[in-house]
């Protein structure tokens, strides 16, 4: 009987020796290993190589030669940040605790078109309403709504009051300039309050394998009218180049609605949903892993174009006026 027990000791030792075989230890945190991991993961999962005509193999050749295992963490960070900069994508970041790399070319080369101090002093005033993240004020019988980040959650009761005030007005201005994005569900909720019927506003696909063109199928993105009641009067959405990510999606939703139009400058883009990753030295990163196109197959990554192109006029600002808001008011009062 005890002899049979030997089978078991063999089994126990076998199982314990499996550890290294089933679960090999973590990869080395040496710069070369870190570089290769990052390059390879971007190569496998990044979604815009062909759209942006980026030769990632060529990028590897350029940067790989500059990596060595005796370089410092700061040098390595700068090298990797430079490499990721080539993706020309605001949804690409490398986070190290001491610094976070980014590519903000999509707004830094363009006019700002937004002055928060001016809006607070001349438009919102002191008695505007605060419904969660939605700041709103009635201007010349028009409801002006300022929303600064889609990362701030809109509750149903926040939205309810905006819809109710909208119904008592001659139209709505939604100001999402400088709104850098956040949660798509907030964008869908806000847009749903102005949608008369269900409609497809974009299509999205996701990387499904390491090949450069390995994507899942195009899935429709659909906007449903808000069940609590909607405002179907005229809406003007103000955007600038710093309207990014979820804000681009919001702009696209509103652009699809027959009762809304976009005014200002095109959005900055951000049409790919970022996926996250980790490097063997503990740094984390993210980059786009999906593609989104509008109904004409134009990539949202390139920004959503406005219906009416208008920049902030320094002369108007000097007079204490935001000429985008003024233009929206006169459009709605017409």
């Amino acid at each position, binding site marked *: *009987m*005890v002899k*049979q*027990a030997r*089978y*078991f000791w063999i*089994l*126990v030792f076998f*199982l*314990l020796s*499996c*550890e290294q075989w*089933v*679960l090999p*230890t*973590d*990869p080395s945190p040496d710069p070369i290993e870190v570089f290769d*991991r990052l390059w390879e993961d971007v190569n496998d*999962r990044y979604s815009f190589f062909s759209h942006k005509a980026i030769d990632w193999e060529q990028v590897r050749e350029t940067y790989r030669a500059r990596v060595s295992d005796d370089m410092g963490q700061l040098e390595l960070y700068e090298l990797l940040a430079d490499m990721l900069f080539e993706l020309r994508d605001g949804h690409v970041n490398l986070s190290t605790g001491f610094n976070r790399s980014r590519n903000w070319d999509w707004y830094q080369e363009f006019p700002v078109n937004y002055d928060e101090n001016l809006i607070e002093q001349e438009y919102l005033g002191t008695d505007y309403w605060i419904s969660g993240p939605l700041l709103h004020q009635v201007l010349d019988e028009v409801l002006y709504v300022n929303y600064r980040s889609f990362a701030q959650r809109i509750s149903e009761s926040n939205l309810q009051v905006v819809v109710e005030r909208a119904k008592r007005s001659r139209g709505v201005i939604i100001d999402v300039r400088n709104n850098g994005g956040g949660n798509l569900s907030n964008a869908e909720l806000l847009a749903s309050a102005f949608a008369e019927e269900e409609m497809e506003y974009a299509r999205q696909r*996701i*990387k*499904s*394998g390491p090949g450069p063109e*390995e994507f*899942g*199928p195009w*899935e429709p993105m659909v906007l449903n009218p808000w069940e609590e009641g909607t405002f179907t009067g005229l809406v003007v959405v103000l955007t600038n180049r710093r309207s990014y990510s979820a804000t681009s999606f919001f702009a696209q939703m509103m652009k699809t609605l027959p009762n809304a139009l976009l005014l200002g400058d095109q959005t900055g883009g951000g049409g790919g*949903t*970022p*996926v*996250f*990753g*980790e490097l*063997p*030295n*503990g740094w*984390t990163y*993210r980059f786009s*892993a*999906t593609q989104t196109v509008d109904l004409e197959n134009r990539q949202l990554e390139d920004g959503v174009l406005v219906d009416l192109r208008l920049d902030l006029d320094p002369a108007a600002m000097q007079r204490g006026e935001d000429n985008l808001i003024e233009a929206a008011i006169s459009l709605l009062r017409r």
Partner: protein
Amino acid sequence: MRFFSPYFILSFLLAFGAATAAYSQTKGNLWLATGLQLQSGRDRGFSPMIYSGNRSFSLAAFGIESPHKTETFQFEFGYGPLTNRFGNSLNALSAGLLNYTFYHKESPAERGLHWGWSNQNVFNIRRHNGFTNYSLRYDYFTAIGPALRYTYPFEWKGQSFKWQTLAHWQVVGFQIKSGYIGADPEGLSEEKTGFGNLLRAVDPFFAGKEWSMGLESSLIWTLPTGNSLAIRYRPEISSLGGGQPVQRLGQAVLVMVTIRLW
């Protein structure tokens, strides 16, 4: 989840116990165990790094011992945070059903080596706390394979003790895993019909490419009342290939009570 599992299991057992209490030739037992599991795992869909930590781990099992065979139905539940060596963390939840059947036609059930088979069903889900998108990933498999049990009863200071080790190795079955980027399995959303959809998401599980094996070693102190108290050590490994591979290694130490129902 945490609450409903033991609750429903016990309700089920109450009903089940009532139905089978009539069998005169059989013995019915209930096991309840709780303890800590040191779990280490890697999901390539998240990271090349190992995440490990001590999770809470509990199990409830129901067993029927008839003269020629022993059947056990064991529900398992584990939950807790795992961290990598840089402090990033994810929360990992596991729920499983592990069934054993052992045959002992020729030898007594209380002693010796018995062969049998096992069926394992495990669902794992994890949420990464540092990732804002695609932070949820899961996997599930169901498989069958051989099982082996060795029981060695002994006396010590006038008390009855028993050493028991069970081993199982899963050979063939099915698996479902999160996709290349997102939580949904690849192919799940291609069609709108539910069942065809599900079939697309299912992949085979084959020993060699996939692995799942484990041991359960218990030192059992049988009380004069027929109940027992025990300590159980439970190492196990599992590895699912294809797509983004997932590997796991667990070692649980549990305190256990066994309740004779009939």
